[in-house]
């Protein structure tokens, strides 16, 4: 029982990384931007997070107690700034400079991974482990609620923030005028333009906000899961690509993305969590690692074969220039 509880708790924690990445990417894609720079943006977010944490840690005396709220708040602000910067670069190139989205995205990933890897490795990590432990649990005394507390109340602020942002994004996309306009831009930019929607502005803002959200995911992984101990082997870019999978898997709905992230996280955590039981058959853990990608492909195929209606925004990846026919 306790084994299952700690597994689920760990999976939810891991799902947070995916959820931020996927929610950000959904906001991107709803505007018609297939942003393949998300892995790079998540890396930039991780860099932002660790820079923010370093700034906070350097601003207080060496032995002063850490403020449990500021230690989350300051890195998040920096992750948002860095992620938004990544989104701004992407939209500058695709909207203003009218470049191909795939090309821009892949370049942004190369650049983002390069910059973040270079600088994260050179940042002083003293007290980061302590800070990481401190931000692990938002509520103290969660043990009192038994297994429920262990699974749902033991998470960090990041996790709750991620769920709130995902739900907020779903509500805004579905029930507000801004969301309607954004979906219109993603479905048929020309029609939206004729209806008086500023396509460029919507794409810019959506991509910048999406980048900011994705960036928090990278920061969370860097600060909480690995506690500033940067290691290229735990490449955040892999999570970025998985976030892209989740977007497809959840049919572009942030609320479904919450559960899809959890499902993908279970699959990601399982190989290491159950390693003692899998020791005999080494290849099983690789099969488990393959499941998220295969599942995403199956979703892609099934949606394209079964339903005539494509769930992806109709002009996903299609640039919009008014003077083109």
């Amino acid at each position: 029982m306790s084994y299952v509880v700690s597994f689920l708790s760990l999976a939810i924690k891991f799902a947070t990384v995916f959820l931020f990445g996927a929610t950000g990417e959904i906001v991107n894609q709803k505007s018609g931007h297939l942003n393949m720079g998300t892995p790079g943006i998540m890396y930039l977010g991780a860099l932002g997070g660790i820079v923010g944490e370093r700034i906070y840690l350097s601003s207080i005396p060496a032995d002063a107690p850490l403020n449990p709220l500021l230690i989350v708040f300051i890195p998040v602000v920096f992750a948002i700034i860095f992620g938004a910067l990544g989104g701004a670069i992407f939209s500058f190139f695709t909207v203003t400079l009218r470049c191909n989205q795939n090309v821009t995205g892949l370049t942004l990933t190369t650049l983002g991974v390069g910059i973040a890897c270079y600088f994260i490795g050179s940042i002083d990590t003293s007290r980061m482990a302590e800070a990481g432990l401190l931000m692990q649990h938002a509520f103290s005394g969660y043990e009192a609620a038994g297994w429920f507390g262990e699974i749902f109340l033991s998470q960090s602020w990041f996790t709750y923030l991620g769920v709130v942002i995902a739900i907020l994004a779903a509500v805004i996309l579905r029930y507000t005028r801004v969301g309607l306009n954004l979906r219109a831009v993603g479905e048929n930019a020309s029609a939206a333009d004729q209806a008086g929607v500023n396509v460029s502005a919507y794409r810019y803002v959506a991509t910048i906000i999406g980048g900011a959200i994705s960036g928090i995911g990278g920061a969370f992984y860097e600060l909480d899961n690995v506690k500033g101990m940067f290691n290229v082997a735990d490449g955040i870019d892999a999570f970025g690509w998985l976030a892209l999978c989740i977007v497809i898997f959840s049919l572009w709905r942030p609320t479904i993305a919450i559960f899809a992230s959890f499902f993908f996280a279970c699959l990601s955590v399982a190989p290491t969590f159950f390693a003692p039981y899998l020791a005999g058959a080494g290849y099983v853990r690789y099969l488990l690692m393959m499941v998220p990608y295969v599942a995403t492909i199956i979703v892609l195929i099934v949606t394209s074969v079964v339903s005539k209606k494509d769930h992806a925004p109709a002009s996903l990846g299609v640039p919009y220039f008014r003077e083109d026919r």
Partner: protein
Amino acid sequence: MSQKRSFPLYVTKRIGLAKWKYWLIRVGGILLAFLIAGIVCTMLKPGSFLTFYSEMFRGCFDFSDITTVIDLLVTFSILLLIALTLTPAFKMKFWNIGAEGQILIGALAAAGVAKFAPSEWPNILILVFALFAAQVASAIWCLIPGLFRAYFHTNETLFTLMMNYIAAVLASMMISVWIPNGSQKFGTLTQGIFPTILGHSGTLVIIFTLVIFVGMYFYINHGKSGFEVAVIGESVDTARYAGINVSHVTLRVMTVSGLLFGAIGFFIVCGIHQSFSPTIVAGKGFTGVLIAWLGHFNPFEIALFAFLSAVMECGTTTAATAVNISASRFTAICTGAFFFIIIACEFFSRYQVHIRVKEKGEVEEA
């Protein structure tokens, strides 16, 4: 005009830009990119500005040590081959961004054959089998998304992207099966390897690349298949009306891509590295996508950009090592900056930015 009325800048399409002006913009951009690489290097390691360029030059064109030059040409060859292979698919608007995985799976097959072929076989026979296995594996990897794209319009961008990761996991899995001691180290191949010429095992790859380049040039520009691809790229409806079977062309192009990607994987494993690891393609599949796009699907332009990327990669690696900064990350930063600048040049050669003066009477400015 894409901007609001009050915005002080607006953009118009350039019409009939002279060829030399177009290349002036591009060469300017390329020089700027190399300048920025030097500035980044100086920022990371103050005072290294001139060392950076001398080391960069030494890392690419050191004729006293011929292997340096061959290293550069091998990197160039692989990038050129990848971009050329992607070109027909891109030309028909099939966004294959799975080159990384398609090459890796071919490399995996070649590595398996080369490692486990009976040692009494002659080397050339092992090589032929390795090439064959690699081509079959890569063709399968290309045809899976190709088939679904051709018959169900499944989104190929996302499909091929996913296939990259499945290939990477499969490669790790096969290594753990082949090398059961858990070290995850494939080791060096002792059979099924290219001969060493001029002190480098990749020399033959350069020669094969030349042959493939000529073949692809005619395939893209002068064959019936290349023509069909071009028509589909312009308009699928026109192609249908002209009696071109779009599904068949898709499958044909993906088969050709697979055969070539298999050969590239085979070159990488048996020729260049004579070893295997799940990261052996090292992101070149993605770089190839950028090169194919920025080369406008023109084989000669692609060759130019492949060469510049190779110079960027080999040069910055040597320079970074010389000034003692992390080479792989510095190379990634420089490559990223390089491509961003080339993309920006693309904009300035296709569009013109004007400054709006007051409400009426607009004054032009480049």
